[in-house]
């Protein structure tokens, strides 16, 4: 028995990428056709990345005195506040809110998208009773798990980055007449988009892999996952709003911490993602 196990571990087959991408493509095709998945996935990013900057842009036009933004500036570190305080009032508000305060809030997007899709890819597959078909196909457990991770990761990054592109256009458009040059992208946003967001997406996946192993339906997984992920969102947003504004290096460190956490969760998930275990629970 021990011998058999060690022999199995010792033999490493390379990842079969065509097979992995076939699964990802099929999963995403199916997901695109589920209104229950697509609508929340597009609604939240639209509100956060397009509607919110528009509203802020319109609100900024009504600011006449320095009062509103000064109270914001009191709350953030001097090193950041001083250059902003030197700007005219409208420019202060726009630079502060669009350039800095919204950045942590944006993390909701990758977290939500990856979690919703992962629930569909793991628990949903059980629910639709298509998992057993997959298990009877020549796919290694590792490749199947990898495919499912990519199924969550690809749309999470696509929506995040696409959303950020839209946000960049809207944010700069609404502030064009008040601000010299572009508000975004700035360093903080770049760290958020390319470093923290992928980590947060992976964290969403890691959580949902665990949750899905215990749920029979994607709805159940979403409820259970929501219970874990929502407080996490507030914590992340709350903490990072403070932390990330302190220093860019703190932003990098926050990202690194999330990467490690997500990596651990996913690694555990991968170890438990075996045919035998999945077949035993379906």
């Amino acid at each position, binding site marked *: 028995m021990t011998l058999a196990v060690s022999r199995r571990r010792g033999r490493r087959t390379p990842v079969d990428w065509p*097979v992995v991408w076939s699964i990802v493509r099929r999963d995403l*095709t199916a997901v695109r*056709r589920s209104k229950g998945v697509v609508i929340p996935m597009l609604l939240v990013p639209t509100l956060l990345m397009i509607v919110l900057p528009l509203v802020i842009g319109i609100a900024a036009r009504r600011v006449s005195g320095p009062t509103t933004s000064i109270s914001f500036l009191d709350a953030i570190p001097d090193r950041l506040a001083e250059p902003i305080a030197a700007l005219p009032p409208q420019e202060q508000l726009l630079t502060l809110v669009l350039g800095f305060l919204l950045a942590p809030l944006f993390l909701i997007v990758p977290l939500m998208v990856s979690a919703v899709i992962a629930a569909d890819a793991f628990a949903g597959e059980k629910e639709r*009773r*298509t998992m057993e078909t997959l298990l*009877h196909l*020549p*796919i290694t457990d590792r490749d199947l798990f990898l495919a499912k991770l990519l199924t969550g990761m690809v749309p999470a990054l696509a929506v995040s980055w696409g959303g950020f592109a839209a946000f960049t256009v809207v944010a700069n458009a609404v502030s064009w007449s008040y601000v010299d040059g572009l508000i975004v992208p700035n360093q903080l946003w770049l760290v958020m988009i390319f470093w923290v967001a992928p980590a947060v997406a992976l964290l969403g996946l890691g959580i949902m892999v665990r949750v899905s192993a215990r749920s029979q339906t994607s709805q159940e997984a979403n409820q259970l996952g929501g219970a874990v992920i929502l407080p996490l969102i507030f914590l992340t947003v709350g903490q990072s709003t403070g932390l990330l504004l302190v220093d860019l290096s703190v932003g990098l460190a926050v990202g690194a911490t999330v990467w490690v956490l997500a990596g651990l969760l996913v690694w555990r998930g991968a170890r438990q993602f075996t045919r035998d275990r999945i077949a*035993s629970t379906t």
Partner: protein
Amino acid sequence: MTSPTTAIRTEALSRSFDGRLALDGLDLEVASGEVLALLGPNGAGKTTTVRLLNGVLRPDRGAATVLGLDSTEDGDEVRRRTGVLTENAGLDDRLTARENLEFAARIRGFGAAEAARRVDDQLERFAMGDQADLPTAGFSTGQRKRLALARALLHDPEILFLDEPTSGLDPTATRDVTNLIGTLARQHGRTVVLATHFLGEAGRIADRMAVLDHGRLRAIGRPDDLAAELWDGIPADIDLGRPATSSVLGLIAAVDGVIHHEVRATGTTINVRDRAAFARVLHTLSTQDVDVFGANLRRASMEDVYFALENSFATEREPAT
């Protein structure tokens, strides 16, 4: 060493769930090209056996060798060469019939063009061409089974595992699917393991039957051989147009060579030691002026053997009653 004509071989194959044995020491050998009916009531361990053979589940004890490969160690290689029709068709209802099949073809390593060609061929063969581009959500159980069977055959598997292939089908669909399986086995020489709790027409196409009960293999062999073990003698039906009366049964029982007799709606079914005894029974009935509308000495059907075995397990389990 497994001989080249052995397709499947298991030794003491066992698996439990939550401490309860679902399969208990299965020893089985299936020859290449053979159609084996794996029979047993719900919960007997048929699906577990299929999953173990295809390397989806790991055995707690024992081993399975399929096409000369260890099902656990070389699971993916085994699965490359087998096709499975699972109990539930397992179609993604958000995809069309064609998309469901193409997905499986791509996973099995066919390029886009070859996958498309094979899928078209299968859809044609299973008369699903008209529904090819419809989502499977609206399909009937029969259409789902056909599509799942088409998917299981895309890659010309050497072994076909069919788990309850006719459950949920109406009589016509059952006959169609059964005929199809029979053709596959006969014409293409495929090894088929047909797991079912519902004998229906399965008996018609299987060479041998294996009967599982509570995870244990209780009998395996050709129906005729098993019949000979179960009962001495040959069963025969006598059509009297109505249930046999006790006086008629008395006449029959008194004939030398009659082992057993039972009342049927249209007469009686008897067991005779040999053909001569059967002739004596018919002679007795005609001399006593009993109207006989038909009489037939038959070979044991898989169904007879199965129900007789089931009965014997039941009496073993409840010796008091």
